[in-house]
């Protein structure tokens, strides 16, 4: 018996529209933040190249606005025999105007040492001497530049993926497989449910695995995680105030690193959407000590694939529930190589291989917290691009079933 969902080819129209809209929104937001950071960095760094002059403080006070005390300072300075007046404390960078960053330095801290009548150093633009600032500040937020940059890359990759991989087919696991997906899941239940569900004798079917859907799901999950995590940590980072802010930033360094790793992983998943799409047809269930056939095909830019390896992988998977937390652990206990395809094999775009099942191994088993899970795994090597690494669950049973 063969189950298939039909020869669907390519992204669905809805999926393509979603990918393009998502990519436009994501890269647009990233581009806005990228330009704000770049412009602010440029504005904040300019005074470091200006010339120093002596300024006399004329007024120095707080002005209450929006519940925050804003420092207002006016000063005058002489430049090549001409007197100028200024009221700019810091460079007029957009990042310095944001409410969160105004709080970063307290108002009192910003005008400390700027008493009326005092002569203080200020920085004057030589080519435009009416421009001056009293304070210079390093554009520390430039360190966040990679975040919007990655957003732009992800967004563009989504758009590229939607336009550039029209031959990627959606995944459809056979109904026959999903009905008998592994063994009994509720092992704690007494009686018949404690027994693993066995396939009906003679009920062999072939299942077709396709890579596109699992890749899309993975990309969306990682993107959501990256946006959520980075959004959450951005709030305290941008709102931090006081003299101990350095310690707060230090505290957030590991969280920011996790955020960057998530963005990297999300970018990797999105780029992987443009990988050649795989299709594998396997006779299921796989029976111990019997041979089974694997038929594979590759669609898309197959010339990018350097090597493609199909393996069957047995894994112990456990969940440990303790109090309110739970942890997952897994260990691969057996890898059976099915086929190692070279460039020449791959360029034929399709082929078959024999899965030689061992005589003795642990068959599939699934209880509530403990599993013996088997996966058909496809690993493809693509130079200078995220590799293919797709895994599909398969069922392994005894020969006499």
């Amino acid at each position: 018996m063969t189950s298939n969902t039909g020869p669907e080819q390519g992204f669905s129209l809805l999926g393509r529209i979603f990918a393009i809209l998502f990519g436009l929104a994501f890269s647009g937001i990233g581009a806005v933040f990228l330009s704000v950071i770049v412009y602010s960095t440029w504005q904040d760094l300019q005074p470091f190249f200006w010339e120093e002059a002596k300024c006399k403080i004329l007024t120095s006070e707080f002005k209450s606005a929006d519940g925050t005390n804003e420092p207002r300072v006016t000063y005058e300075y002489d430049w090549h025999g001409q007197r100028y007046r200024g009221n700019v404390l810091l460079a007029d960078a957009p990042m310095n105007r944001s409410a969160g960053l105004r709080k970063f330095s307290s108002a009192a801290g910003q005008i400390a040492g700027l008493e009326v009548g005092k002569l203080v150093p200020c920085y004057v633009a030589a080519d435009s001497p009416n421009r001056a600032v009293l304070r210079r500040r390093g554009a520390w937020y430039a360190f966040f530049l990679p975040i919007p940059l990655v957003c732009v890359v992800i967004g563009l990759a989504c758009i590229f993926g939607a336009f550039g991989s029209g031959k990627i087919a959606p995944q459809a696991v056979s109904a026959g497989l999903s009905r008998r997906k592994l063994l009994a899941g509720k092992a704690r239940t007494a009686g018949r449910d404690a027994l693993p569900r066995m396939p009906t004798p003679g009920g062999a079917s072939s299942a077709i695995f396709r890579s596109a859907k699992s890749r899309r799901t993975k990309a969306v999950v990682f993107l959501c995680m990256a946006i959520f995590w980075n959004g959450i940590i951005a709030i305290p980072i941008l709102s931090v105030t006081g003299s101990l802010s350095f310690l707060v930033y230090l505290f957030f360094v590991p969280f920011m690193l996790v955020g960057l790793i998530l963005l990297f992983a999300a970018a990797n998943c999105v780029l992987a959407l443009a990988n050649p799409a795989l299709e594998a047809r396997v006779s299921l269930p796989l029976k111990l000590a019997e041979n089974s056939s694997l038929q594979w095909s590759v669609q898309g830019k197959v010339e990018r694939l350097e090597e493609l390896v199909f393996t069957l992988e047995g894994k112990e998977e456990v969940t440990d529930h303790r109090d309110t937390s739970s942890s997952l652990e897994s260990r691969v206990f057996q890898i059976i190589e099915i086929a190692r395809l070279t460039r020449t094999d791959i360029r034929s775009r399709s082929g078959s291989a024999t899965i030689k099942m061992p005589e003795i191994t642990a068959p599939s088993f699934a209880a509530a917290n403990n599993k013996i899970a088997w996966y058909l795994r496809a690993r493809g090597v693509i130079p200078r691009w995220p590799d293919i690494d797709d895994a599909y669950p398969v069922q392994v049973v005894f020969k006499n079933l």
Partner: protein
Amino acid sequence: MIDLSIDKALYEPDEILRARLCADGLLSAKTAELRLLWFTQGKGTQDIGLIQTMEIPRSSASFTGEFRLPRGPVSFRGQLITLTWAVEAIIDQEFERKEFVLSPFGREIDIISLQTAGGR
């Protein structure tokens, strides 16, 4: 005191398991049961599969019960999970357990020592 014994330590799927039970307090016991089950041990939270429960008659101090063993899950020993089959006798507050191996391979599957194999 419960004296529980089974006829062998290794069974194949679909085989009949005979459990012999001898207990002093069986005649006056309020509850007396023989259970066939499997359970996991290892890093994960324990799973237990209670396959069959047999009520023990209180007409004599000894009893022999039979269970037809299912096809699986088979006994295996891994790095994270070990699956063990057992027969348990529970008489009031007392219990006794005899563990055995269910496997079609003549031994428990040791998945720690499995090697990679196969080919095109």
